[in-house]
């Protein structure tokens, strides 16, 4: 045990003395969260929209003037048919179209019911949602105001159509994605590199000749990065809650427990890479290309997996971050408990045990 503590102290010295790396490791999640947060989900101003007013009556005019008054839109009134609207979208001239049907006010007065069509370019899902929400809110405001004077309440139904990306994948969900990305990077790459470095410098041989157990070498290498990663998770969550106002709806404790599990998965991955490679560059390259890219591509946080070809969908199942991403998203955004995510948890545990077994086996072969 004393040997173990001495070893750990050495590992912490390695990590803490490498100031530049340390700065990157702690700075990266913060900058990523801020960049993703402000670049992707900030409010949308001065978006070009087109209003097609087929009604030209009192109700449509009132709503249009309210939309005009808002600072979010640059409005253009034009009589366009469906095809022309589509064309404007394709050319990127407009972000949204609001269409009033011919008998808008008439329907409201006589049937107490009217429809407004809202079409948005959802290839940028964040902008699309924001814009449609703004317009829906404006319409609801108008409706609420009219209800004060009317005996029978109006019901205006905004019919929202999202062009190009109807599921609106990727909205507000980048925080779980960044957590997965950062953990992947810190745990896999740093662990792999720090073990391979000892192989490169020759100190690994000295350690293997010593009475210190090889298994212990691995564990003590991993512990500093486990702690570092937990600090990173904390800082990401603090930022997302207090700066980006993305709340954690589920249990924080569960979130940390699942994160720890994923960190351990990543650490075993890192150890596995380090067992298989002999140079820091190779270890780094494998971690980046083999781990970071799949995390970005196949975890579902940037690109919807449902839209991928079947083969890639199947492939995405072996990417650990996919499962972790589902878990974090479920806890943070849907606020679910363990009963809803136990399957994903079991998959992650299975992957961890598999990787651990694989690295142990290979580690022994190397020694033989």
């Amino acid at each position: 045990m004393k040997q173990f503590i001495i070893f750990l102290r050495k590992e912490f010295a390695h990590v803490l003395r490498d100031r530049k790396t340390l700065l990157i490791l702690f700075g990266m999640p913060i900058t990523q969260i801020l960049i993703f947060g402000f670049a992707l989900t900030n409010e949308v101003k001065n978006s070009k929209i087109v209003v097609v007013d087929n009604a030209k009556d009192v109700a449509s005019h009132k709503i249009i003037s309210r939309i005009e008054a808002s600072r979010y839109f640059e409005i253009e009134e034009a009589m366009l048919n469906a095809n022309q609207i589509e064309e404007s979208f394709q050319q990127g001239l407009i972000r949204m179209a609001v269409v009033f049907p011919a008998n808008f006010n008439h329907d409201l007065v006589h049937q107490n019911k009217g429809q407004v069509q809202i079409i948005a370019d959802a290839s940028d899902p964040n902008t699309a949602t924001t814009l449609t929400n703004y317009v829906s809110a404006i319409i609801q405001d108008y409706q609420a105001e009219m209800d004060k004077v009317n005996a029978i309440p109006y019901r205006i139904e905004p019919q929202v159509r999202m062009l190009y990306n109807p599921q609106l994948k990727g909205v507000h969900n980048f925080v779980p994605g960044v957590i997965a990305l950062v953990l992947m990077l810190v745990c896999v790459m740093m662990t792999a590199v720090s073990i391979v470095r000892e192989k490169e410098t020759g100190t690994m041989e000295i350690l293997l000749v010593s009475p210190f157990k090889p298994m212990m070498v691995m564990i003590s290498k991993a512990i500093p990065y486990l702690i570092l990663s937990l600090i990173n998770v904390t800082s990401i969550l603090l930022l997302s809650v207090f700066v980006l106002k993305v709340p954690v709806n589920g249990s924080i404790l569960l979130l940390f427990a699942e994160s720890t599990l994923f960190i351990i998965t990543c650490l075993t991955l890192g150890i596995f890479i380090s067992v298989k490679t002999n140079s820091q560059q190779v270890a780094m390259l494998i971690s980046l290309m083999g781990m970071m890219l799949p995390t970005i591509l196949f975890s579902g946080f940037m690109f919807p997996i449902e839209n991928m070809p079947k083969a890639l969908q199947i492939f995405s199942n072996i990417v650990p971050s996919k499962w972790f991403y589902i878990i974090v998203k479920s806890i943070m955004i849907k606020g679910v408990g363990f009963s809803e995510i136990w399957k994903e948890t079991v998959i992650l545990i299975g992957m961890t045990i598999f990787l651990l077994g694989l690295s142990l086996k290979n580690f022994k072969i190397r020694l033989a």
Partner: protein
Amino acid sequence: METVIKTENLTKRFGDFIAANEISFEVYKGEIFGFLGANGAGKTTAMRMLCGLSIPSSGKATIAGYDIYRQTELIKKNIGYMSQKFSLYDDLTILENIQFFGGIYGLSNKQIKDKSESLIEQLGLHQEAKKLVVSLPLGWKQKLSFSVAVLHEPKIVFLDEPTGGVDPVTRRQFWDLIYEAANRGVTIFVTTHYMDEAEYCNRISIMVDGKIEALDTPSHLKKTFAATSMDEVFYQLARGAKRGD
């Protein structure tokens, strides 16, 4: 004389390739045993087997009285090892390196403290004790490396080309350290490519293509091969080698 290393027909195969072929020899306590051979002759393989880093394919061996197959943990406690690569931590200070290696060999805090004081005294490193090892010149690093390898007072210390790339003066100083350790009863098992260093050894063995072709004191070897220097002896033996790098 007490035998500390004893091998009988020790063999290591990698597929069809026989890296070490039925090696048999004995090394005695307090001896400086030189282990020579051209590149690829199988020195490192043999040494790795003796250190417990590699499992032999066949044959027997005991190190410090312990069986090489079954008692590797006991062997590890009783040997020191210094590889051809510099093997201390660059980003730790001299003192921290000493503490670390003392620690993983299970020395007590007091032992570590006493040892590091005497070691720093001996190497004259008072000024540098709290500096990072990376700032030391190579020669000093090697001396420090050796001192760390014998810190836990092993029965045997294995040195794998310890003086590669070191200037002659520092090499001489390095060998002073080796003699000192040998006088304390530590057995030295050293591989080298420098023939002047071979002359410093009590006995040497020369490996050619996985086999030990000669094993004797330097003066006897020179007599047997009718040579004036170890260089010639080595050349006569190694010339017949079929494998190399």
